[in-house]
């Protein structure tokens, strides 16, 4: 490998960001020297221009801050998501409790439903309840009708007396 090829190799390494500090020093010394291969003239301008770029002092600090804020945002998003998962879990658990305690559970067999009563007994009790309800309502409306009639009679007799 001749000198020009070697400098090209160092330049490739430099642009790839893999060049060591000693390699970079070698490149600087070559381009600052008296003889530069004419094929590398354009490369020299580019290399020196890049070398003139000043890295601001606070750049590292700003980069660190940006990385930290991005990390914090990611954590916040994760915490927010976790909170929503917890909320959804709490609601789901509550619904499950309500469904278990309030709503009738599962499919029951006829025997489980009937329990200790026969169908005839259930029918008899239901009939008894319906009849009691009915008689109470009828007795109540009859009493109300009778009471209204009596009240009208009393009012009429009083008005006759007046």
């Amino acid at each position, binding site marked *: 490998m001749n000198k020009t090829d070697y400098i090209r190799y160092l330049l490739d390494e430099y642009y790839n960001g893999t060049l060591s500090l000693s390699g970079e020093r070698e490149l600087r010394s070559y381009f600052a020297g008296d003889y530069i291969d004419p094929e590398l003239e354009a490369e020299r301008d580019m290399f020196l221009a890049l070398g003139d770029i000043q890295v601001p002092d606070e750049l590292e600090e700003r980069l660190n801050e940006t990385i930290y804020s991005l990390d914090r945002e990611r954590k916040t998003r994760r915490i927010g998501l976790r909170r929503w998962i917890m*909320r959804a879990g*709490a*609601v789901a658990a*509550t619904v499950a*409790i*309500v469904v278990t*305690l*309030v709503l*009738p559970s599962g499919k*029951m067999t*006829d025997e489980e*439903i*009937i329990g200790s*009563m026969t*169908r005839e007994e*259930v*029918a008899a*009790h*239901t*009939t*008894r*309840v*319906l*009849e*009691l*309800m*009915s*008689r*109470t*309502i*009828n*007795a*109540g*409306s009859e*009493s109300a009708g009778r009471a209204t009639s009596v009240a009208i009679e009393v009012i009429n007799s009083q008005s006759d007396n007046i």
Partner: protein
Amino acid sequence: MKRIISLLLFVTTVMVASAFDLAEECDNIKGVSTISINQAMLKLVSFPDKGTNPVDLEALSSRLDKVQIINADEPAPTAAVKNMVNRYISSAPRFERTMKMKDGDESVMMYMRTLSVPRANEPQNEFLIIVEDTPDITVVLLVGRITMDELANVTEL
């Protein structure tokens, strides 16, 4: 977090209110007998003999959701049942006393409330009748998609 706590409190209150079952509460009182028939039971019931009653009891019972009978015939259990019924009435909103009849030691009270209107023109009503004949007490509770007129027709003729 506050919302979750509020939601849990609301759900707990609804659960406690829904969980007040009169017959079950009275079951714990010594000297009280109870009968509780739920909707699933009522669907299995058949009324073989209609007799002279023109009302189709089978069709009527298919629209019932709950039937409960509570009975006590000793002073202490009767007082406990009365106390429990009063608690039930005061804890259940919209209960209205539709009737009260008193004749000597015997009195009959009837309460009613509309629970919900799940289907058009078919409100779910709750009827509660308390029959007291000192020292006896009988409490009858009926829930179903049934009206007072329909109930009255059961023994009208």
